[in-house]
């Protein structure tokens, strides 16, 4: 299992989509490719944007399908962050 701590990378307001893309490309996708589960740890992060979360996980869901949600876990998320992640996960499964 690979745990990615996001706060040192994005700060307290996770909104930089370029960094999200780098995390996805350089950490999430290679770990999944190796058959590992990925924990995205949001501790220290107060809020995020839909665009950030979309950039972080939409392509992962598109590549691996909905089943990837069994291997992708979100940790220490505030209520706001949980809801924004849920919006993205929902619409990616509907498309």
């Amino acid at each position, binding site marked *: 299992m690979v745990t990615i701590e996001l706060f040192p990378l994005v700060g307290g*307001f996770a909104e930089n989509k370029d960094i999200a893309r780098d995390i996805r490309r350089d950490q999430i996708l290679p770990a999944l490719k190796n058959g590992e589960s990925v924990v995205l740890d949001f501790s220290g992060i107060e809020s995020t944007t839909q665009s950030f979360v979309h950039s972080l996980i939409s392509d992962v869901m598109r590549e691996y399908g909905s089943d990837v949600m069994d291997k992708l876990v979100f940790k220490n998320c505030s209520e*706001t962050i949980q809801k924004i992640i849920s*919006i993205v996960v929902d*619409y990616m499964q509907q498309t």
Partner: protein
Amino acid sequence: MKIYLPHSAFLGNIDPFLAAFDPSHKEKLEITANKNWIFVHPVVLAMVAALGLTVYRKNIKCEKIVARSGHYLERMGLFKFLDIKSGMKITEHDPSGRFVPLTQIKTSEQLTKFLTEMIPLLHLEPRHAEPIKYIISELVRNVLEHARAPQGAIVSAQYHAKNKTIRIGIVDRGSGIKSTINQSWDASNDLEAIKLALMPGVTGTTKREGGTEQNAGAGLFFIKSIAYVNRNFFMIYSGNAMYKLLKRSGAKKIMLHANPNLDRHSERNNLPYWDGTAVGVDISLDTTQEFTALLDLIRDTYSEAVKERKRNRYKRAKFI
């Protein structure tokens, strides 16, 4: 180009200001102003500043501001932006608790820095800061990613203590919404393009549901929803069109619409042509709903909009 700073121009009464803008002769800029009083929304100042960035300094003519409230323009940094000496002698106050001066943002890093520094300037509680950071981040990233604006985004904000409202303006002189949306869609005019951009799941980068790996086409829908739920104005002006979300009546049940035509709004399709996009948003701190409750509504509306678009694409069985 000619632009006139009127006595008053806020989102509720901004139409005459926009209609008076003269976009001809792009190589020069003439700024005139009301002589008694100037009280305008930050989006108005951001528009003037953005125009100034596209014209050589020697071609900018700004009449002497004599209105008593003219020092507001100085403090918001308008004359610095235009590289003009206003001649005004004012005591520079610490801007904390009052306003975010005009700021040019051209890179992702500058945006991150701006977001970090802006909230302390406005002295906001976390529940008020959350939607404001959200709005500015999404709108400025739209400019950086889609607008092809060499000058980037011009941002400004002001807190009005009397009615406890944060007013935000974000402006660019880029390619405009129609040009961006029509990379994948077929909007026949600027107003149609703005309305498409406001629909959840519509992005200029692809026609595919769910967007691309970097764009979902949800940003403007989120922002319109924040303004709608909190009973605030939200205005987009691009090309010769403007869409303005009007204040929702407090008594009515909150119901988000994916289709912007169903929201209480006004629209114009015959305004002077604005190269790029100007967005103004008001956030009333008295009526700020919990951001998390708003997200539940967005989730339901977004989901229904995607389903409806899919249903519209269903092929029907043909019976002969």
